[in-house]
């Protein structure tokens, strides 16, 4: 079959009749005989549908699905109190089972199977949330998130799906944040200086850094395809820098100087140093580099601000605010210039 298709254009030379339909055109494109423009032109000619028709089709499909979904959601929301707990659980578990069976049927290697496994993981969380609401035992929220993460771990390991992997890490993050607020430093706000609320940021930064390092190792050294999506790196790298920059700013502004913020400040310097080396030289990634630079700018501006407002004293006026505004513009302009130069240099090296 493929041979016959690829020889299509040469046979066109003799004046035999050929019936060409859209399928033929698509196959020719798939075989590389037609380029994209030729395919589009051919399809346009063969199955002409006006743009407004396609637009109406898509709009109706989209609004129709959205309304049907909203209907399902509202049906359950409105009748929630009338459903007995066991009916709620039965419904959720049936949905869970259907999701798993469909994932298995579709095959765990295909995207459909992976998305269905992700769906099953989300449904597990929904079931636990309903459990926490139906039985008012005062189970701490962190326990539900920890149980959720623990229960879906098996699927996370075998699914080989980047989105599910990231969801699992987010769950671990949330569980730890809640655990810190409810057990380690009960009742304390996370920025409660005196009671060590900052510590959790350092712990979370380290955990996310380890996960990111594992991802980088898996992709570059083990050629693990399913973690290759760069957005995974961006989300985790942003998380690491965020967790370190928050206490870093508290340290730089002089608002809080304790073990946790000093550790965070030190780790932030290390992270920025590693990041600017790694994302410039080893795994060139301008966006990840930009995150690094942004984090550094925020801390530098805070340090400068501390000095400016120290000199202007308690009743600082418009002058020092104007000065700060100019400094902010200056720092970011410098950062932008550096990023542009570095980006051009990275591009030049790659090509």
């Amino acid at each position, binding site marked *: 079959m493929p041979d016959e298709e690829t020889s299509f254009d040469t046979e066109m030379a003799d004046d035999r009749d050929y019936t060409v339909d859209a399928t033929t055109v698509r196959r020719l494109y798939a075989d590389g005989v037609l380029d994209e423009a030729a395919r589009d032109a051919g399809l346009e000619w063969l199955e002409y549908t006006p743009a407004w028709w396609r637009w109406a089709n898509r709009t109706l499909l989209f609004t129709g699905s959205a309304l049907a979904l909203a209907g399902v959601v509202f049906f359950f929301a*409105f009748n929630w109190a*009338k459903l007995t707990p066991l009916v709620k659980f039965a419904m959720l578990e049936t949905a869970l089972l259907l999701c*798993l069976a469909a994932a298995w049927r579709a095959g765990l290697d295909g995207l459909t199977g992976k998305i269905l496994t992700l769906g099953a993981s989300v449904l597990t969380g929904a079931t636990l949330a309903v*459990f926490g609401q139906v039985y008012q*035992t005062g189970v701490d929220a962190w326990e539900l998130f920890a*149980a959720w993460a623990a229960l879906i*771990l*098996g699927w996370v390991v075998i699914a080989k799906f980047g989105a599910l992997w990231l969801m699992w890490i987010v769950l671990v993050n949330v569980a730890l944040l809640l655990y810190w607020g409810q057990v380690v430093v009960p*009742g304390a706000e996370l920025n409660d200086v005196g009671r060590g609320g900052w510590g959790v940021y350092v712990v979370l930064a380290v955990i996310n850094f380890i996960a990111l390092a594992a991802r980088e190792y898996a992709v570059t050294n083990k050629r693990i395809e399913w973690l290759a999506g760069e957005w995974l790196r961006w989300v985790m790298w942003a998380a690491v820098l965020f967790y370190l920059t928050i206490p870093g700013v508290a340290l730089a502004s002089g608002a809080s100087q304790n073990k946790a913020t000093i550790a965070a400040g030190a780790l932030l310097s290390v992270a920025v140093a590693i990041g600017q080396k790694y994302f410039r030289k080893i795994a060139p990634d301008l966006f990840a580099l930009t995150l690094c630079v942004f984090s550094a700018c925020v801390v530098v501006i805070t340090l400068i601000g501390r000095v400016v407002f120290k000199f202007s004293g308690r009743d600082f006026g418009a002058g020092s605010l104007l000065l700060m505004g100019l400094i902010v513009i200056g720092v970011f302009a410098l950062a932008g210039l550096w990023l542009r130069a570095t980006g051009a240099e990275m591009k030049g090296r790659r090509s």
Partner: protein
Amino acid sequence: MKKRTSIFWVASLVVFVVINGLIWQKQHLLRTGEVMLLQLAPRDPRSLMQGDYMTLRYALMEESGQAAAEEATQTTATKGALVVKLDDHQVARFVRVHKGENLAPDERLLRYRLREGEFSVGAESFFFQEGQAELYARARYGELRVSSTGESLLVGLRDENFDLLRGDTDGDSRFSLPPIKDLPDFSQTPTQISVAGS
């Protein structure tokens, strides 16, 4: 690949066993647990309404405040059990902190967690359907089912006459349609159309 599929189903089985095990445990406690009422600490309950749930504060925690403070300074354990006595209305009164000793026949256990130097029996919040805050503002007691080992489960709220407050299960009244009789009658064709201003 075979191995992967079997891990997939084993993991799925574990999820179902754990979730249903937890549900069974709670249902068992509901069926077999003893009714115990905890008086709510007197304060304006409406101030505690958070939209669709209210924060509960039990009088028991205030009676036991001194013991809790001592416990918090003496031990590093964050869990334990209180010994309580039930009165004629099944309302629990604090007796002492349980130290593993045998109980008198009229004494019961109630598990606690130590939080911020105060005992917490769990179930510090009660969820209800949105729009029913008025009903639950009358709550005076929290109703628990408690196992012999002190595991507890909040099942409802009672008013000052010990009557269970039952939520209206017909959904949130704000979202329900007006009864049909209140709708204008469209069945008759208007003979005259009045125009505003005429």
